[in-house]
């Protein structure tokens, strides 16, 4: 439709005038009215989507740390939106393969970012629903021949319209050639073809393991062209995360609690299992434990003030040994 014909019908008075002057039939007038109405609605809807996208990008910005990931997500957002605009103008577009590999230790924000990406793609109309389905090896791999394909397909079905997030994906290649994990990968690759337009798959796991996994399955490299690396949080970032988590639950750290918390984090970081149970996951576990310990400390106290309920003290903070 060209500019002129748009101007022609873009206002009710125009239509009425044409109708009175006998230039158009009542039938045409109603069609014009409908067009105008539809246009109005679509403008409102577009504004909504844009607002939503803004909110989602803000949510991303508010995540602590993750500078490189944020940068990448923004580039991705820009790329996809420009490709979309080019497509609308019938210009050549780059093929859009949005499947990704997330590398990083547990608790470094991979799932959080995946969820934000889902919402972002929905607001951009790349995905219909934008939800995230989180699975791991046990959800995909079955016990006998054929079982795996069936289980995998089930999870894929749940994820259609959104993101299938496979945590510790490298474990699918763990057992070698005879393992059913391979069947899961094959089923997955086929589904990615079948639902090209409406499914994004993210494979996540430790950096080294994921690199090994890709080497063992060279065919996957080109199918997962987007790579994001999630670095460990610094102690400073972890403390910011802790503060946010505590406040979200309507608690406060006392000053000595902060110091103790930080000390424990530093100890943990230098410990042998940091890659498995460090980062934000560690922070969350420590906070949850502190909240329980505060409750135990207060429950037998005779008089409990509001401040008592609010503050987490240093004695409430303790190491967590198991996750």
């Amino acid at each position: 439709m060209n500019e002129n014909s748009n101007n022609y019908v873009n206002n009710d008075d125009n239509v009425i005038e044409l109708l009175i002057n006998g230039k158009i039939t009542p039938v045409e007038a109603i069609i014009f009215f409908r067009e105008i109405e539809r246009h109005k609605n679509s403008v409102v809807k577009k504004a909504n989507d844009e607002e939503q996208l803004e909110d989602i990008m803000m949510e991303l910005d508010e995540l602590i740390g993750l500078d490189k990931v944020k940068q990448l997500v923004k580039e991705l957002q820009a790329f996809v939106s420009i490709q979309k605009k080019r497509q609308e103008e019938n210009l050549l577009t780059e093929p859009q393969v949005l499947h990704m590999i997330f590398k990083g230790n547990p608790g470094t924000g991979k799932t959080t970012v995946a969820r934000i990406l889902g919402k972002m793609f929905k607001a951009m109309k790349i995905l219909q629903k934008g939800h995230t389905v989180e699975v791991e090896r046990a959800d995909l791999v079955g016990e006998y021949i054929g079982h795996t394909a069936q289980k995998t397909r089930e999870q894929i079905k749940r994820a259609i319209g959104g993101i299938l997030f496979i945590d510790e994906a490298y474990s699918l290649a763990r057992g070698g050639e005879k393992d059913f994990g391979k069947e899961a990968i094959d089923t997955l690759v086929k589904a990615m073809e079948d639902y090209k337009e409406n499914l994004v798959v993210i494979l996540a796991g430790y950096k080294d393991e994921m690199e090994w996994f890709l080497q063992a399955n060279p065919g996957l490299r080109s199918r997962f062209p987007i790579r994001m690396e999630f670095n460990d949080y610094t102690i400073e970032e972890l403390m910011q995360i802790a503060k946010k988590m505590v406040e979200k639950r309507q608690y406060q750290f006392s000053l000595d609690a902060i110091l103790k918390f930080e000390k424990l984090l530093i100890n943990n970081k230098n410990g042998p299992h940091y890659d498995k149970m460090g980062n934000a996951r560690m922070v969350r576990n420590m906070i949850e434990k502190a909240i329980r310990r505060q409750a135990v400390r207060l429950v037998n106290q005779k008089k409990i003030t509001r401040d008592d309920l609010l503050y987490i003290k240093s004695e409430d903070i303790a190491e967590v040994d198991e996750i």
Partner: protein
Amino acid sequence: MKKCIIIGKTNVGKTAFFINFAEYLGIKTFELEKKFPDGIEEYAKLSSRAAFAALVDEKYHKTKNIQSIVVTVPIGKGKKKIQLIDTAGLTDDIHPEIDVRKAISQTLSIIRESELILHILDASAAEKKELPSAFGMVDYQVAQFAQLKRGYVILANKIDLPDSSYGLKKIKQEFSGNLIIPISALNKTGFKEVKTFVIHNL
């Protein structure tokens, strides 16, 4: 006050329905407010009999203005006032008379501001395509347009006439997906259903 507009092609029985339905809702004296396309307003007070005699006509395009009356309907324990509006008949094609064209454009503007749309079709004229009241393009377009609104119903009128059962079937086919109530504006049949529809959509 919510607007309930009666629309349809000429001679389908809009004015007959307007007067008889108002009477059915308890109106005895008609305090009519007439609005002409050029902006002039007129008020008239008359009995329903007189109103019927003066306004309903087999002549085409008898009504060239919008005439409305305030009626009350029961809502829960209380009552609610609505403005019932009779309009000039629509045509498929460009009408040669400017007055009729003006009246039609007035009708179309009002459709857009109304919460309730009662769209009348002449069920007895389905086979008589030559009659101006036979439903046509403009009716299909109105139906498509009005579907965007919640309070839209098609009233298949003149079911007291012998030819109407075929017409009713045809209407149900061609306007499927819409709420369709068979009525006779003359005999006041189907009015209970129309009243229920109005109350439910206020």
